[in-house]
């Protein structure tokens, strides 16, 4: 028995909320997704369904393509010249990669929080107001700023310094600011790529708490290397891995297993998942 195994089950047991697999509305329907960077296929054959108001966690070893898949949900791969996406990503039934789809509009509906906090070199207020402003919202910016910061759990710390530079905040505060900035445009989905990897346990706890709070309004996909975190917050978990593919010896990412978080962590169907979550990987 490894350490990891001892850690995850209590994390599952201690969950403050129930794992809520609603099967309500499908937000994303991914079929046959493959992404290549020029000649190298990073990941292929991904089929996934993401449901509304659930938290889906992506776990897996480094380099297996979690971030790559995540970037397909808001067309961020468009910004990488070498990236080519194949397959289909339906968002409420519309293929995001349909040529008629405007990526700018997509990203207003589907927000993203990055691994490293990336506040703009502007005031805290202007950071939050940036999204609403470019979306053409002029009314009650003050209210939007307050509400977003409150939801991100930063209002009390920031309310007296809204006009000061966001770069003066601590790393954890900056990350909560980035979450506030993402939710200020009232997106439908929030994509989070290792949002807590540079944060201490307390700041991490706050962000997890925040995710649980906002999950009633948002669909969240979170990439995490912290399996306890996946067990604590997510409703469903997707386990990816990278395997040597074909005679070239190139490693290519695969979706191994996608299921209810409880099942993935206590009774996974695939032995590779079992090996990974119990720390016997590789």
């Amino acid at each position, binding site marked *: 028995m490894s350490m990891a195994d001892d850690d995850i089950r209590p994390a599952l047991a201690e969950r403050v909320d129930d794992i809520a697999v609603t099967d309500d509305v499908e937000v994303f329907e991914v079929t046959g997704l493959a992404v290549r960077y020029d000649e190298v296929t990073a990941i292929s054959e991904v089929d996934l369904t993401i449901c509304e108001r659930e938290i889906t966690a992506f776990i897996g070893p480094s380099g297996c393509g979690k971030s790559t898949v995540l970037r397909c949900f808001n067309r961020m791969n468009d910004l990488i010249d070498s990236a080519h996406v194949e397959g289909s990503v339906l968002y409420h039934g519309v293929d995001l990669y349909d040529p008629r789809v405007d990526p700018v*509009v997509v990203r207003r509906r589907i927000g993203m929080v*990055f691994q490293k906090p990336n506040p703009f070199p502007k005031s805290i207020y202007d950071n939050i107001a940036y999204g609403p402003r470019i979306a053409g919202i002029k009314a009650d910016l003050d209210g939007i700023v307050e509400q977003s910061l409150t939801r991100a759990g930063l209002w009390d710390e920031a309310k007296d310094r809204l006009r000061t530079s966001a770069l003066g905040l601590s790393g954890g505060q900056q990350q909560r600011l980035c979450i506030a900035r*993402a939710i200020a445009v009232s997106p439908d989905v929030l994509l989070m790529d290792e949002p807590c990897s540079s944060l201490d346990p307390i700041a991490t706890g706050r962000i997890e708490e925040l995710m649980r709070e906002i999950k009633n309004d948002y669909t969240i996909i979170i990439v995490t290397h912290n399996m306890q975190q996946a067990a604590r917050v997510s409703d469903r978990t997707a386990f990816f891995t990278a395997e040597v593919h074909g005679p070239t010896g190139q490693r290519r990412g695969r979706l191994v297993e996608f299921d209810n978080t409880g099942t993935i962590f206590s009774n996974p169907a695939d032995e590779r998942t079992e090996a990974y979550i119990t720390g016997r990987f590789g």
Partner: protein
Amino acid sequence: MPPFAAETLLHDRDRRGVATDRAFRSVSVVAGFSVLALLGLILVSTTNAAWPAFSAQGLRFFTSTTWDVPKGEFGALAFAYGTLIVSVIALVLAVPVSIGISLYITEVAPPRLRKPVIYTIDLLATIPSVVYGLWGVRVFAPWIDPRYESIAGWFDSIPVLNTVFNGRPISGVSFMTAGIIVAIMITPIITSLTREVLTTVPSSLKQGAYAIGATRWEMIRGAVLPHSRGGITAAVMIGLGRAMGETIAVALVIGSSSVVSARLFNPGDAMAAVIANQFGESTGDYRAALIGLGVVLFFITFFINSLARVWITRGRRRAGIL
């Protein structure tokens, strides 16, 4: 392994590293101070050489617009004004174009087009200013002259503007022509510096803007420009320094007339150009007065540069970059 001897941590003053370190320190201190000393010496010797003019003219040297060599009346104001007007015209024209080109290179142009554009711009920066001046006076001024006439025509009935853009007889060699030529000269410099500043914008910042649904222009406004504001200001100030100090090109195209005039299409003169045009034939107080122009130019550039420094530092502190 022998037990660790704590004494080895104590400063060993004979170690070679320590000696090199000291030598390096003294060399850099000397180098640093020699720059200051040189600056001080230039200031002292020029002020000294200009002193006869300063003492003979008194405050009039700075407040009078009369520059009458036979009468021995020397007032620098008209030329200081000319320098400022030419620099302002040059900046107004060059800054937007330079920022536009740098944004094009860093954010818009397809990667394979970037290198050639950068090379071309850098090449323009290496052309000697006398070439720009000759082109300005032989080709550009005759070509632009009739165009000034028609522009003046548009503003005929608009108050203020009919002074600024009129003042017949209009001349191809004028403040405006000097400003345009200087703008062409400083555009490559400001572009190069601005481009370098823009490439330092972290891609995480740009992705952050795109991820909220910014278009390219909104991303530039939200992420690129706020991050680069200080650097762009510095680039503009270096351009301004060049514009104010530009001598030979301005001397060729400004028309050499010592008037304080708001009429941009009329000939005027600027400090550096006056010095270049008149220094050879000058003697005595006349020469002292020309050197005095140099001292004034020195102080104006110094003042503007210091102002820029303060401004950049304040801007950075406000953005929290420092």
